[in-house]
């Protein structure tokens, strides 16, 4: 951990990304403190008022209001909650499931491996966002469904990397030694395999986080994600799109938050990859 931070000091871009991301996490956790107004308070009389620096803007609504008069800034701050929560949860659920399956496939080999890897092939053979949209259309918009669908779209790359790494590790002599010493499978996996395969999985997780944050926003944008009364960046973009000609701020500003968030995650992921293994590619 110390080495991680020491190395990071040498890469200013990664430092900046870490600061931005931490800021967003803080903003999301303490949204009620930071948000100037209630994100769901409607006031149709002040609908589509511009940001404070533009003509007709007021200082009450720094980033203006949307089509029903809700405060854009407050909704962006609350939107960070959904984006980060869904992103982190889906990576956890999909990542742990995928990694475990990969570990099992790589460690036990045989027909278990064949079945698991065929499942991976099927999952990777189809654009996940398309399937996610279709499933969401049928099960209906809700937060739990979004998390389920995006976790389902996440597990396969983890499985593939975990299996590859496990195969490599199991060829090492220390695993043979552990076996010779009479260690149980569970003990070998927990003490010797997992610690040696975890780093590449962390790198995969960082890129999966970026992808899932974008995918959640895409689902909400298309109207099949988190229900529209909850403030989400994707949902705000989708609603604001209809007012683009008269109120550019409603649909562009949440996108900047989204982009900043995803870019920070990507920069950190890229840096982590270089840190752990300069040769690990996608």
């Amino acid at each position, binding site marked *: 951990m110390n080495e991680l931070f020491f190395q990071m000091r040498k890469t200013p*871009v990664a430092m900046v990304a870490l600061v931005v991301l931490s800021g967003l996490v803080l903003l999301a956790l303490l949204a009620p403190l930071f948000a100037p107004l209630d994100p769901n308070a409607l006031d149709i009389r002040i609908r589509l008022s511009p940001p404070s620096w533009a003509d007709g803007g007021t200082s009450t609504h720094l980033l203006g209001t949307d089509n029903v008069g809700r405060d854009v800034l407050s909704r962006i701050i609350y939107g960070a909650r959904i984006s980060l929560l869904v992103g982190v949860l889906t990576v956890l659920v999909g990542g742990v499931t995928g990694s475990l399956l990969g570990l099992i496939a790589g460690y036990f080999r045989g027909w278990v491996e064949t079945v698991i890897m*065929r499942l991976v*092939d*099927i999952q*990777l*053979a*189809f*654009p*996940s*966002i*398309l*399937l996610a*949209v*279709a*499933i969401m*259309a*049928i099960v209906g918009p809700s937060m739990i469904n979004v998390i389920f669908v995006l976790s389902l779209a996440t597990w396969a790359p983890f499985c593939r990397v975990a299996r590859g790494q496990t195969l490599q590790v199991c060829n090492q002599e220390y695993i043979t030694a552990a076996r010779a010493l009479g260690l149980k499978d569970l003990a070998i996996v927990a003490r010797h395999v997992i610690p040696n395969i975890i780093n590449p999985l962390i790198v995969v997780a960082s890129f999966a986080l*970026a992808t899932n944050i*974008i995918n959640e*926003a*895409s689902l909400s*944008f*298309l*109207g*099949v994600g988190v229900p529209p009364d909850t403030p989400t960046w*994707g949902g705000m*973009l*989708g609603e604001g*799109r209809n007012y*683009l*000609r008269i109120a*550019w701020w409603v*649909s*562009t500003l949440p*996108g900047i938050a*989204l*982009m900043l968030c*995803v*870019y920070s*995650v*990507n*920069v950190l992921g*890229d840096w982590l990859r270089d840190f752990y293994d300069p040769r690990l*590619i*996608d």
Partner: protein
Amino acid sequence: MLRYVAKRLLMAVFILWAVATIAFALTFLSGDPATLLIGDHWTTEQIDSFREQMGYDRPLLVQYGDYLKGIPKGDFGISVRQQVPVIQLIIQRLPATLELTAAALFLILFVSIPLGVLSAVKRNTPADRIAMSGALFAQSVPTFWLGIVLILVFGVWLRWLPVSGRGSFAHLLLPAITLATFSTARIARLVRSSMLDVLGQDFIRTARAKGLPEWRINYVHALRNALIPVITMLGIEIGSLLGGALITETVFAWPGIGRLTLQAIQARDLPLVQGVITFGALAFVVVNLLVDLSYSFIDPRIRNE
């Protein structure tokens, strides 16, 4: 070689079967599609006779069997709302999607390959760093947001380009850029790392020792070998293009298959969704099969794996 082709072919059929099964299961998970028409000014008798006419009253296994049997004949079921064969709707919309995807693919290849090669050749120079941070940034821009910003800047503010619909070259420009950006960035990064791998190999040193000009080494000897993983990636990228088309076509009101899918979803026309998903899987699997096979022609080592 024949064994390899047979194996890939079998795998493709298997994947297609799996996707078709999932699509079928999803459609019939919530009862039969005719129930969706309840409340649509249909009487119970009308719905019942419609159910009978469409065959939804038959056992599920029979319907499933018929659906699978129909796929090789190009029969992807019938849209509940429009009551026309799904394939007819797909054929109507296909040219628009092909036009958009081809334009995007053109942009992807003509930007990402030179950019990736340049970055690899001039590695660790400011030009490389700018190009690669730019690519990482482009990878972080959500497709729908990019589309909206392009519409705002070039359509609403500057009034240079039309912002929706299909027709002229000008109509194609913004959607193609929107669709291409993410993949361009990803492929450029891949070309760079692949080139770096190749440039470190012995035959490049030999080429250099023979006194070949640097451009020839980079663009002929190295690039040809570096493109092998890129071609595989392009096949997979077709998948993101399909997903991206869903969003891009929605943002630009582009009358293609992506928009058809979303309209089907919004209308809860599940047989249409099922058909489009299966068709999408078919297209994707066929493209990847072709990519895999071409890959083995380019690199004989693959065949003997």
